[in-house]
């Protein structure tokens, strides 16, 4: 059995990769989606919030189902990763609404693009 931290680390790596691939499959620009995550290694859990403009005005349950369905195909050989995963899918509009839908302070953004170097 893998150590807790190995599962969590692998989950972040694999899930970010799969979410990025999902975004590409939708034709989204890198600037139109955001991935936030929080790890809870003591309990082998990784929580993701996947935010995109492409989810605006769509049924949140259906949007989440479509992402889960994609992840289950992409990570079909990684059952421990899927079990470790908590996933919330949000439209950009909802996140901008704040309150219940704000990104909590415990979440880190996973940068899928990087600022250009200046020197």
């Amino acid at each position, binding site marked *: 059995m893998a150590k807790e931290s190995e599962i969590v680390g692998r989950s972040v790596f694999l899930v970010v990769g799969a979410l990025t691939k999902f975004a590409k499959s939708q034709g989204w620009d890198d600037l139109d989606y955001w991935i936030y995550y*929080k790890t*809870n290694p*003591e*309990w082998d*859990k990784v*929580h993701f*919030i996947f935010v995109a403009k492409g989810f605006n005005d769509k049924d*949140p*349950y259906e949007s*989440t*189902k479509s*992402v*889960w*369905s994609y*992840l*289950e195909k992409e990570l079909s050989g990684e059952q421990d990763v*899927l*079990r470790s*995963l*908590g*996933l*919330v899918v949000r439209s950009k509009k909802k996140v901008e*609404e*704040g*309150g*219940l*839908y*704000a990104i*909590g*302070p*415990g*979440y880190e953004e996973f940068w899928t693009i990087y600022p250009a170097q200046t020197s």
Partner: protein
Amino acid sequence: MPSHFAQLNLGLTAADLDQAWKDRLDDAEALVAAGRHGAAIAARLYAIEIYLKYRICQRLNLVNPLKRLEIHDLDALVVFAGFSQVLAAMPAGSNLKQNWDQIVTFSDDLNDLRYRPAARWSQQQSKDLSRWLDDPLDGVMTWLKNQK
């Protein structure tokens, strides 16, 4: 003398917890009626946390809760309550699993509910949390209450 992990909070009983989660839900209803939506959201978050602690007492046949479990981590509380395997075995995209993930994600923000102005939370958001918890088909509290 019990180990550090097994120490009980002798000032609180499982019966207290069983009453307290119901009281917090009643508080939430009263707060909603008064238009205090942020406080209603907080009361509902307290209710699920207290309910899980009550179920842990039931599961472990304890009259008093464990001091070690005076925590707010829903990932941990659901493990000790004995429901994590059932939850993990659910279809990933099911509405219930989605509702659970929404609540766990938001539970991280309890400090915001303490320290930020009430205008941050809307009536609709209070309704959304209520649905995640109490939907008759897919609500998390509905599901937990049906677990043996």
